[in-house]
């Protein structure tokens, strides 16, 4: 063997705690090990971005035409309004719902292999016997990767918000509007990255516990589905105390998120939701009903309708609240994962 | 040395197929258990929701006098169930893709990735027979489970494509549009197709997670193609002049002729409607939300006297089952083709 020069001095012997290796050493390591996954995420978001762009331009054009048309009540303008409504509720709705799976897929497929692949293939016996401490190795990966994913998905969330901006209201009567708290809430600039990072964190922990990649991915998708369902069905309406009003005209009627409605009579609670049939038949039986609101036919008889709702102006506070607890949850989960890495292995 | 008469066979009799039953079970029981749990959870959801939907529909349909405020309220309640079920209808579309990809991707890819094919394919059973038994057995189990769930889906969403919904003033849509890919024939067909794609991808890519991703991507592309382009052409659409279609018909296209020549397609241009029709607002039935091809054409009455004739191409709801078999047929053919290709690859090359 030829004599070669050692490029660094032999390290200190037996002294407690030599100076730690700098964190930036992990940059290249993380990139080399996860570049394929990151490339896949970029390709997926890129393809979806193209899709959103291509389908969003006609939607915006239809919307611009509808709001620029005067007079609003003419049949021609009504036609444009109808066209916009049709395109808004057709593919747009389906797209919005299917996009909900994207944060889950990205987080699961990117996060599960970080630890599970090392454990499944045995390469942890290499990675965790190097000079870079195990918990630092895990921390570096479990912070760098979510940060990158958050940046990519935040950019995508901006595009999603642009796409759905025509739904936000403001325009002639009859123009299709949607509450920003609906299906699309978790796809916006703050919530999309927050949900992606949460899925990543769950996947990392699942990978550490289950130690096999594909089962960890499946477990992550299942947990994510439960969490997303809980957030949409129960948690979201309580982020801020809903406003309550007796007015029948909600501010920004179609864009407000109606939580619940109830009727009182003489200051006491009468019934919640829609009136019971006997009261309907008694007071509202004349001709066709008043459509979705029975207040006009019940008001003369002493009933007051109350509505609790969240106005669309609260969109950004809600985004930050949801983003906040998701981020807190992710940080907690990642902390637990790193603690597990430091504690046990083989 | 004694001369012996050798009566050995030229080639030994192949081992019986049933030998593979226990092998397949042990190797794939985790995946099968996960699929069963998922489908079970969905079944519970569909059962509970379906009861609500059916209940609401029955109440709305039986309500007398029709059109009263009380009956309108019941109709609104039924429409309200559609709000949630519409989301479910869309989200459920991912299930065939997920099941097929996660079940099919690892079958061969895991063996190749971990190297255990060097064990499995040097046993006495034979390589392609091993692969055939595994793929067919898993496919059959998946088909049975998903067919059962597909039947449940059809039942659950049944009231949304019932005849007469339009007259009641409730939401109704064509069954060829509504959850079409999730019904008793198409749900298993899609699952099997993705399963076969996953198996072939696993054979080609030789790594589990990329094979799963490839299968998911292929499913997305295929599903979009089917919904956007293929489905409307399975049978030549019926064409009728100014028909009074039930809400369950799937309107594919509309156009108007005048003096035997094409005047315009789709909705009438502003110029015509402002001249001949004087609707105060959008004509009824045109607003979003009632779904389907309900009712007669709203402009027929005002444009007809001026020589414009409406033509509509549509698929009637009675074609639901032929369409199911057609879509199921080509998906199954695709699955068989891909599995055959996978087996051929397994037979001819490995290491």
């Amino acid at each position, binding site marked *: 063997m030829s004599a070669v020069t050692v490029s660094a001095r032999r390290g200190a012997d037996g002294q407690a705690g030599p100076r730690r290796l700098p964190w930036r050493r992990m940059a290249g390591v993380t990139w080399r090990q996860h570049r394929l996954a990151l490339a896949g995420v970029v390709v997926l978001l890129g393809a979806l971005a193209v899709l959103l762009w291509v389908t969003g331009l006609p939607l915006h054009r239809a919307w611009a035409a509808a709001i620029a048309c005067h007079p609003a009540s003419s049949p021609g303008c009504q036609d444009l309004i109808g066209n916009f409504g049709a395109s808004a509720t057709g593919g747009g709705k389906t797209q919005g719902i299917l996009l909900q799976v994207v944060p889950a897929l990205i987080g699961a497929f990117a996060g599960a292999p970080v630890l599970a692949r090392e454990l499944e293939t045995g390469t942890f016996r290499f990675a965790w*016997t190097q000079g870079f401490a195990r918990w630092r190795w895990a921390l570096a990966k479990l912070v760098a990767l979510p940060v990158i994913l958050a940046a990519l998905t935040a950019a995508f969330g901006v595009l999603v918000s642009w796409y759905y901006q025509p739904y936000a209201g403001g325009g002639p009567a009859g123009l299709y509007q949607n509450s920003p708290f609906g299906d699309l809430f978790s796809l916006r600039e703050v919530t999309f990255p927050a949900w992606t990072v949460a899925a990543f964190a769950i996947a990392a922990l699942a990978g550490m516990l289950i130690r096999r990649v594909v089962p960890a991915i499946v477990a992550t998708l299942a947990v994510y589905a439960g969490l997303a369902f809980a957030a949409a069905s129960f948690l979201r309406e309580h982020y801020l105390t809903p406003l309550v009003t007796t007015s029948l005209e909600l501010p920004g009627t179609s864009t407000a998120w109606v939580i619940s409605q109830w009727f009182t009579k003489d200051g006491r609670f009468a019934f919640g939701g829609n009136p019971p049939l006997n009261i309907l038949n008694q007071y509202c039986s004349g001709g066709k009903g008043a459509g979705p609101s029975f207040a006009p036919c019940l008001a003369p008889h002493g009933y007051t309708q109350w509505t609790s709702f969240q106005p669309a102006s609260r969109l950004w506070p809600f985004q930050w609240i949801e983003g906040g607890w998701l981020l807190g949850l992710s940080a907690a989960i990642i902390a637990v994962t790193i603690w597990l890495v430091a504690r046990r292995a083989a | 040395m004694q001369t012996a008469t050798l009566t050995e066979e030229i080639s030994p009799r192949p081992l019986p197929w049933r030998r593979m039953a226990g092998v397949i079970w042990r190797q794939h029981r985790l995946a099968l258990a996960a699929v069963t749990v998922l489908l079970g959870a969905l079944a519970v959801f569909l059962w509970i929701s379906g009861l609500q939907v059916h209940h609401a529909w029955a109440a709305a349909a039986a309500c007398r006098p029709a059109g009263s405020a009380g009956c309108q309220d019941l109709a609104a309640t039924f429409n309200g169930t559609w709000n949630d079920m519409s989301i479910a209808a869309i989200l459920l579309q991912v299930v065939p893709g997920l099941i097929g990809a996660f079940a099919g991707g690892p079958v061969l890819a895991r063996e190749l990735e971990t190297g255990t094919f060097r064990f499995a394919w040097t046993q006495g059973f034979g390589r392609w027979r091993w692969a055939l038994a595994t793929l067919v057995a898993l496919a059959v189990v998946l088909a049975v489970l998903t067919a059962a769930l597909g039947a449940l889906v059809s039942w659950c969403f049944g009231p949304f494509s019932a005849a007469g919904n339009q007259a009641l003033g409730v939401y109704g849509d064509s069954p060829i549009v509504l959850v079409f890919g999730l019904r008793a024939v198409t749900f298993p067909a899609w699952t099997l197709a993705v399963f076969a794609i996953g198996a072939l991808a696993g054979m080609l890519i030789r790594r589990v997670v990329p094979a799963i991703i490839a299968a998911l991507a292929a499913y997305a592309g295929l599903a979009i193609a089917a919904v956007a382009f293929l489905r409307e052409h399975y049978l030549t659409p019926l064409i009728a002049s100014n028909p009074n279609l039930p809400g369950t018909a799937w309107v594919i296209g509309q156009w108007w002729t005048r003096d035997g020549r094409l005047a315009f397609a789709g909705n009438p241009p502003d110029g015509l409607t402002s001249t001949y029709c004087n609707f105060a607002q959008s004509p009824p039935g045109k607003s979003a939300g009632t779904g389907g091809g309900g009712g007669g054409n709203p402009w027929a009455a005002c444009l007809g006297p001026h020589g414009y004739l409406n033509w509509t191409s549509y698929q009637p709801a009675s074609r639901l089952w032929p369409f199911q078999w057609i879509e199921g047929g080509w998906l199954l053919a695709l699955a068989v083709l891909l599995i055959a290709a996978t087996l051929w690859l397994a037979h001819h090359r490995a290491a």
Partner: protein
Amino acid sequence: MNVVEASGLGKRYGRTWALRECTLQIPAGRVTALVGPNGAGKTTLLNLAVGLTPPSAGEVTVLGGRRAGSPAALDGIAFVAQDTPLYKGLSVADMLFITRSLNRRFDQPYAHARLAELGIPLRRRAGKLSGGQQAQLALTLALARRPQLLVLDEPVAALDPVARHDFMATVLSAAAAEGVSVLLSSHVLTELERVASYLVLMSRGQVRLAGAVDDLLAAHGQASLEELALRYLRETAPEVAR
């Protein structure tokens, strides 16, 4: 200095003790052979020494009192596990980069020179190398870290006789030239004969014999390591050690 010191060390998986009451002082500056039949606990002992797993009983320190698995210990020990785990999807160059990034010391010129000698191309994916080449690559990465202690778990199992000879020659010259202590477990006793100067004999989770080879051979009147090992293991366990 003792490169590995264990007192009352034990490791339990579930209810099975893979290693029990292990008390050892392995001196520095030697090539130590860890010998024993399958299931003897060799891999468990090595995993404990390199800090991959915490002990269930007792304690183990390395390199003169450093706690196993501590940063100071990781710094001075290079480990090549059984089946030489490498990132199969990454190239040889990537593996070099990763090892260099994760360690304080890395002798890049040495690694390049050795890989060139072995004819292992830098661009090839680690998973595409032959079994023997993977073992050589793993050893190169370990030696390039300039460790004080090199720990090898069944390193020559996948190598053909010529490669095996070259592998052990490299290990030996590193031990001699750089003063690297070596702890390796193996079944191949004939190879160990030429290289090992300290022996630890294990069976059924316990250390049966430990000491300098010369002393042991003299004390037990055996001519070779193989005979000593076989005889001792036959006496204490029904399995035959090869």
